[in-house]
């Protein structure tokens, strides 16, 4: 039962929030150009790191805003929350390992352009 620091509402109880999986996985620019493997990686494959990872959360019982968070999956503790379109103050290449799933690596964290 953590407190999560909603970038709009401040610290609120964990139960007010919903988890949205790994952050910064942009929708592919042109899905039709991807082969089945690339598409499968977009649809199904997400990092599962033991340690800090960037995730998406939504303050579902509050302001209904999605935001991003850096969280330690070992302690569960939130290191930082930041608004969509913002970059975390803590950036490290290790947080965003370039993998096959990331068919387009975000130039700036949180920036997701498509179509």
């Amino acid at each position, binding site marked *: 039962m*953590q407190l999560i*620091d909603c970038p709009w509402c401040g*610290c609120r109880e964990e139960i007010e929030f919903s988890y949205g999986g790994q952050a910064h996985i942009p929708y592919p620019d042109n899905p039709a150009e991807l082969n*089945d493997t690339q598409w499968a990686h977009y649809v199904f494959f997400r990092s599962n790191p033991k340690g800090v990872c960037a995730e*998406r959360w939504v303050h579902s019982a509050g302001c209904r805003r999605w935001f991003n968070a850096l969280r*330690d999956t070992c302690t569960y503790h939130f*290191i930082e*929350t930041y608004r969509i*379109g913002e970059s975390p103050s803590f950036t490290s290449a290790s947080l965003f390992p370039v993998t096959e799933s990331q068919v387009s690596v975000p130039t700036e964290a949180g920036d997701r352009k498509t*179509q």
Partner: protein
Amino acid sequence: MTQQYRTPTGGHITRDTALSFEFEGTLIEGYAGDTLASALLSNGVHHVTTSIKFGRPRGIAAAGSEDPNGLIQITTPIPEPMQLATTVELAPGLSAHGIPGQGTLPTEPDPARYDTAHLHVDLLVIGAGPAGLNAALEAARAGARVALVDEQPLPGGYLLSTPCMIGGANSTEWIAQTAAELAARAVIHLQRTTVFGLYDDGLALAVERRTDHRGSDAAPDSLRQRIWRIRAIRTIVATGAHERPIVFADNDRPGILLAGSARTFLNRFGVRVGDSVTVFTTNDSAYSSAFDLHDAGVHVGAIIDSRLVIGTEWIEGAKIRGIPLHSGSVVTGTSGDNRLTSITLRRFNGTSFGTAESYEADTLLVSGGWNPAVHLYSQAGGMLRYDERLGAFVPHREVDAADVAASRSGTTFVPHREVDALRRPLPRSHEKFVPHTGVDGLAIAGSAAGKFGLREALDSSHKAVREALVDLRLAHSPSRPPEVEEDRDHTPGAVLWFVPSDDPHKLTTHFVDMQRDATVADIAHAISAGLRSVEHVKRYTTIGTAHDQGKTSGTVASGIVAEISGEKMSSLGTTRFRPPYTPVAFAALAGRARGHLFDPVRVTAIHDWHIAHGAEFEDVGQWKRPRYYPRNGEDMHAAVKRETIAARNAVGILDGSTLGKIDVQGPDAAEFLDRIYTNIMSTLKIGSIRYGVMCGVDGMVIDDGTVLRTEEDRFLVYTTTGGAARVLDWLEEWLQTEWPELRVYLSSATEHLVTFPVVGPRSRAVIGELFPDLDASNEAFPFMTWRDTKLANIPVRIARVSFSGELAYEVSVLSWYGLELWTRLIETGAKHGITPYGTEAMHVLRAEKGYPIVGQDTDGTVTPQDLGMSWVVSKKKLDFIGKRSFDRAANRDDTRRQLVGLLPDDPTKLIPEGSQLVTIESLDHATVPITMDGFVTSSYDSHALGSTFALALLVGGSTRLGEKINAVVNGELLPATITNHVLFDQEGVRRDG
């Protein structure tokens, strides 16, 4: 009985309030303020129960929740299993009996009430002993909002057992003064309240016992227990320490108890634990117990101390009192049946034993040292380290939070220091302070921190509270902890886990975990079996798994494993402490989420009308929806038949208000919906309506419904009842995270409007009559369009959509007027035979038309194409959610299941929903597995078709129309013909009336 073991004076009991209670069928007397254990002991009753495996007699072995022995079942006034005699307060009407390790659940309903309360404080102090009281007082004086929580009925903790001078007063007065000042400073002071768990960000969970101590005086339906959820910015754990036993042969007889507990019984309850006492110790603390008992007139036969070096003070004290002192000696055996009668001691130098000597004794006090009560600290993620000197696990406070992270996980992803630097971002909160994270902001003080002297305990609490006040940015004036005597210069205690022998396998009455009847021999066997991990040994022996969760046995067991296996204690570690600290009743945790409050019941504006008209309801998500309206004793089949006939032949009306409604507005609204739906919404004209399907990125159908274009930049999206919240979340997710550049706003309007489909050939007449200003003709108001009108000057929106294939008008109005609109529709429709129908008839009508229900005819593996809806999948759009997945290999499989209709050969036989479809001709002699070609998703008896029928998902279904298939029903084959999924009015001529 006569309380012959009660001291003439003293103790924190109310001697003028005698309470009689029943134990094992005998009436006994004690005083208000007693626990069941102290009342039993005051009458000389030690033997409370028998042990779980061996049936050995067992007595009270401790004075608090650490007692591994005194398990009882309460039979009145409130039956409850698995309680400890040492924690049950004596109360009017109490009766109980001992239980050998297993309780009995009472079968009568629990009439009591339970609730939850949230509390927000600056500082939570757990434990109202001297360290806790001092910390709470200091913080309150500095202006902090403080909660002080303690599990005992009275504050004071250790001081209740150990009268002394403190702060210039005797301890009883000091406790009273302190409590009074805390009350005056509005400290939330909860006694009889156990903090059972510490969680993230300063959350403590506690259970308050509000009425049990009033026994039968409390109303059975009063608020019995309350769970407190306390969110504290800073927390001080001052939970004291548990005394540790020493394991020796036959150490489990009634009359053998912890030395400190005997002192508690004497000083807090005015109870002498025996007539003739011996003491077996490894440390100084038991001497005080021996001397107090002696001074209270108890014969203390001997003190047996495993150490060779003993402080002069203790030697002198024993000499003055004439108590023989056996240094360098251990107890090697005991005698007695239901009560101890004698003990045997031998000199012991660590390897060999001297000759045996015996003492007659009815009571043996044991002390193997003290274990700080670190349970809560450990639960919160605090690291422990083994202290060789104390023979105990103590808080490892040098460790910072990042190391905790590392220890929990084995590895962390980023260097510790970096994480730590990031751990406290600036709060965006309107709250002034960010509560602590894990062990940050958690301090541990007093004997819980291994500070066993009163002065050092108070000093540690003072330090902890001042640090907390600094963190809270609260000014505090210089102060000192209350004055107490200098702590005695303790001679280090010896660490003696058990009295050994040549072969530990033979130590079959050296009880380590009395509740589990587990012995040193069991541990030895585990190690001989090849086990090295303490976890394995505990599982092998079951040590630590019982009611007391190893409060007295855990560390001792680790010590014995270390000793027998030759491992170092520090490398073995201890098992992780897990919540709860003491057991908590299920009902208390359920709180008031019981019965009709277990989960919200959502109802529409006309729910009362449904009830008044005899509706049977169906749970759809949290909604209650009328399933059918039986009349005159109709069963469901008859009612549904009547309702469907009305809708097909005259007019029916449905409460469709539970459908989700989402207002989509903005310049890019059309573009947004084009990306979400499989078909094109941007070409929809204002005033028109289009059906649409949404898929997940995996291409599977997730919801469907109609979309009304209300303005150039505005749409009203209808979702399924169950999908309303999920779909809004889904749309917001895409909009906010993926397409923030789109100028679109989403708002729920689900409850704003009620929606009543008026369905059937006579619906036009009803609508025309109630809304005379509306031209309801097909020409003026065609299918898949909507029109606004008014009823008594209230705006009403009417949509020509049909989920039945019939001419239908869905009428929507502000929900305030829902009941008015509904009743006027019913009144107006009366002469046309208007008939309210429920979800069951709705299903028959839609299934006859082959309209699927998402979640019933789909299961997360079904594409629009599978549903025969390729027409709803745009070929023109470059992309939409799910499109790319349609090109995967699996989507091209000719083994995909597709929606078809089924007409049973015997039109009177209904194929149950969920039935499997097979091609084999006979089940006789068929060997499993039998290949299944699909299954029935919907199945009804149709008056319109004059037959039963079903919808099914069938392998390659779209290419098998006209073929035969068999449904397996009750082990029989029921043949049916595969048809198009649209079975009724395939030409669609009825929708325009």
